[in-house]
């Protein structure tokens, strides 16, 4: 009702006042909020780089940062859908703990009894068992929330305690180690990365995909004679995306294996180490690839499928969604199943990285995941949020943690800073939304 006064002249007046920046933003249709987040991330990185005397923006640190963000980033993609439908999931850390434990016990204790220690099926079966367990736990939560109408906060608060206890119970608190060697690749490390050549291949495929999507979107819009973005804007976006992708690949390829591993590898393969050492690049880490793949799949799910459309519609107006004939309960249950599955993927990454399953794994991860989603622009009042934003939020949280460790900030102070940043970030977002509406 606010703009019943003829909007057309107002718009044209506004257009004539627009500066070059505004025209640029309009032409490229970029999300200003997302840009703001990337800007904040860049500022944080540069500040840490300067304060740490040039330690932060190094291939090594950035590579490790990407690996450390992977698990939380994977879970944050699911948390977006949970929060968009006005729910919350406090149990993801505990689900990670219990599914990690289940996968650990499966591959260390049970599966080798039937398959032998060297069977290649062990790691695959272990992951499948973990995923099924995660989805089943999510289904239980979802059923209680959607069909028995118990608030998600309570159900998942209960789940937080129950599944943490269950993780403890599986082995009476014993740590399970070591993991299957193939399973371990999911956690990164020198072997858990795809090497320089494949990284370039992945990068080039990603660039080709970006160009294809821009071209395809343009073709679709032309088919229906919708207004098109100016050609220079399309070219600019494509170029920026490709430069960023190839830049990231270059960084991953600039981080060499540590000398010890190189020596062992050279000995095992009878390679003579040249003077000045042998340079073998890590390339993109497997957990990072998993996180990116999950991010792409979840973005597809959220924006291109009916399921995703219904998730957002429910978040915007649950009653309207129900009146439109959407089975809101089943959708809610599916969201929690998805969240449980993603927590299991997170468990794969973190148990593989630690090379052990412990009953404390994932403790407090639920808060990092929620914080990542919220910093990434997911509104707790529902209906708003993006997968990409949540993943950037996860990287941002991890950047803070890593940066403060590099600076030697005390643990208690680290927590104080992270907590304050969360509140300030959401406050800034509230102001932004009020202005932009």
């Amino acid at each position, binding site marked *: *009702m*606010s*703009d*019943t006064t003829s*909007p*057309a002249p107002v718009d044209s007046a506004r257009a004539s006042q627009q500066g070059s920046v505004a025209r640029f933003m309009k032409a490229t249709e970029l999300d200003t909020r997302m840009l703001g987040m990337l800007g904040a991330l860049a500022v944080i990185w540069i500040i840490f780089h300067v304060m740490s005397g040039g330690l932060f923006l190094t291939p090594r640190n950035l590579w490790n940062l990407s690996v450390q963000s992977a698990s939380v980033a994977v879970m944050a993609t699911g948390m977006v859908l949970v929060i968009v439908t006005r729910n919350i999931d406090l149990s993801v850390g505990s689900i990670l703990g219990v599914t990690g434990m289940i996968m650990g016990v499966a591959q260390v204790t049970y599966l080798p009894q039937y398959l032998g220690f060297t069977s290649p099926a062990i790691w695959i079966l272990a992951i499948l068992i973990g995923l099924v367990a995660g989805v089943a736990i999510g289904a239980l939560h979802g059923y209680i929330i959607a069909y028995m109408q118990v608030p998600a906060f309570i159900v998942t608060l209960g789940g937080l305690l129950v599944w943490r206890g269950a993780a403890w119970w599986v082995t009476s608190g014993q740590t399970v180690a070591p993991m299957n060697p193939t399973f371990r690749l999911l956690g990164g490390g020198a072997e858990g990365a795809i090497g320089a050549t494949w990284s370039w291949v992945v990068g080039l495929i990603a660039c080709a995909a970006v160009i294809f999507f821009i071209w395809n979107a343009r073709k*679709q*819009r032309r*088919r*229906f004679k*919708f207004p098109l973005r100016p050609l220079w804007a399309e070219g600019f976006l494509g170029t920026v995306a490709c430069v960023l992708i190839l830049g990231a690949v270059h960084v991953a390829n600039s981080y060499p294996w540590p000398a010890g591993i190189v020596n062992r590898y050279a000995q095992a393969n009878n390679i003579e180490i040249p003077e000045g050492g042998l340079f073998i690049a890590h390339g993109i880490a497997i957990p990072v690839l998993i996180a990116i793949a999950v991010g792409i799949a979840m973005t*597809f799910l959220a*924006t*291109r*499928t*009916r399921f995703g*459309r219904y998730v*957002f*519609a*429910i*978040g*915007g*107006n649950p*009653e*309207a*969604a*129900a*009146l*439109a*004939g*959407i089975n809101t309960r089943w959708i809610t249950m599916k969201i929690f199943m998805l969240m449980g599955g993603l927590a299991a993927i997170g468990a794969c990454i973190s148990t593989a990285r630690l090379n052990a399953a412990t009953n404390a794994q994932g403790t407090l991860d639920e808060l990092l995941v929620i914080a990542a989603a919220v910093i990434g622009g997911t509104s707790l009042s529902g*209906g*708003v949020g993006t997968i990409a934003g949540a993943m950037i939020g996860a990287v941002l949280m991890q950047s803070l943690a890593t940066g403060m460790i590099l600076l030697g900030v005390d643990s208690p102070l680290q927590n104080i800073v992270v907590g304050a940043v969360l509140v300030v970030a959401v406050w800034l977002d509230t102001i932004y939304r009020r202005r932009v*509406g």
Partner: protein
Amino acid sequence: MENRTPLVEMSNISISFGGIHAVDDASIDLFPGEVVALLGHNGAGKSTLIKILSGAYRRDAGTIRVNGEDVDISNPRDAKRYGIETIYQTLALADNVDAAANLFLGRELRTPWGTLDDVAMESETRKVMGRLNPRFQRFKEPVMKLSGGQRQSVAIARAIHFNARILIMDEPTAALGPQETAQVSELVLQLKNDGIGIFLISHDIHDVFDLADRVVVMKNGQVVGTARTGDVSQDEVLGMIILGKCPPGAVPGPGALKIAA
């Protein structure tokens, strides 16, 4: 007219919530190309009765016939399958998504791969909105940013785009200015000429009396009476709404005031 098969016939419908009879033994019918106004105070049970037809509530007792055939409507999807479309008083729009997403909510167009065909939906939306509200241009914005009239057009577009045979309009003009109200009236007449049956629900008789062919008045969950608008005056209908007094020109229902005889 009474010899034809009614488009909709709801007979002896009852529903109660926690012991309160929201609708008690109510019967109404609707013929093709007819506008029936359902009148009554707030809480008279008219919205509840109509929500049973649109599938939002499930009746406790009674039968619903569409084109003379018994139908079982247990959710909004069923109702839509029988060509029953509803424009709710609250509009029932998902405020955070755009007009096209709302128009096709629950009935999305999909590509051969099963993904959402957003461009096709936007294109259809541009067509239907172009007819209803030619000045509407804000296809990319979430509907929460639209004006009351624009939101109303989105809700109307959603109801008429899918070849509705029966249209339910719950307080269609409550949130609108005079000009937009006139547009809605025009639309009602146009749809009526297309042979669509329309239920108009209102608590204000002045909104609907001139548009309607018949009025059905409800009070305390019961039907007071049914009358052709030609057979009764507005004052008599007001008497039905307020007192439950059935005038000679109307057919009394179970809720009519019993005059000691």
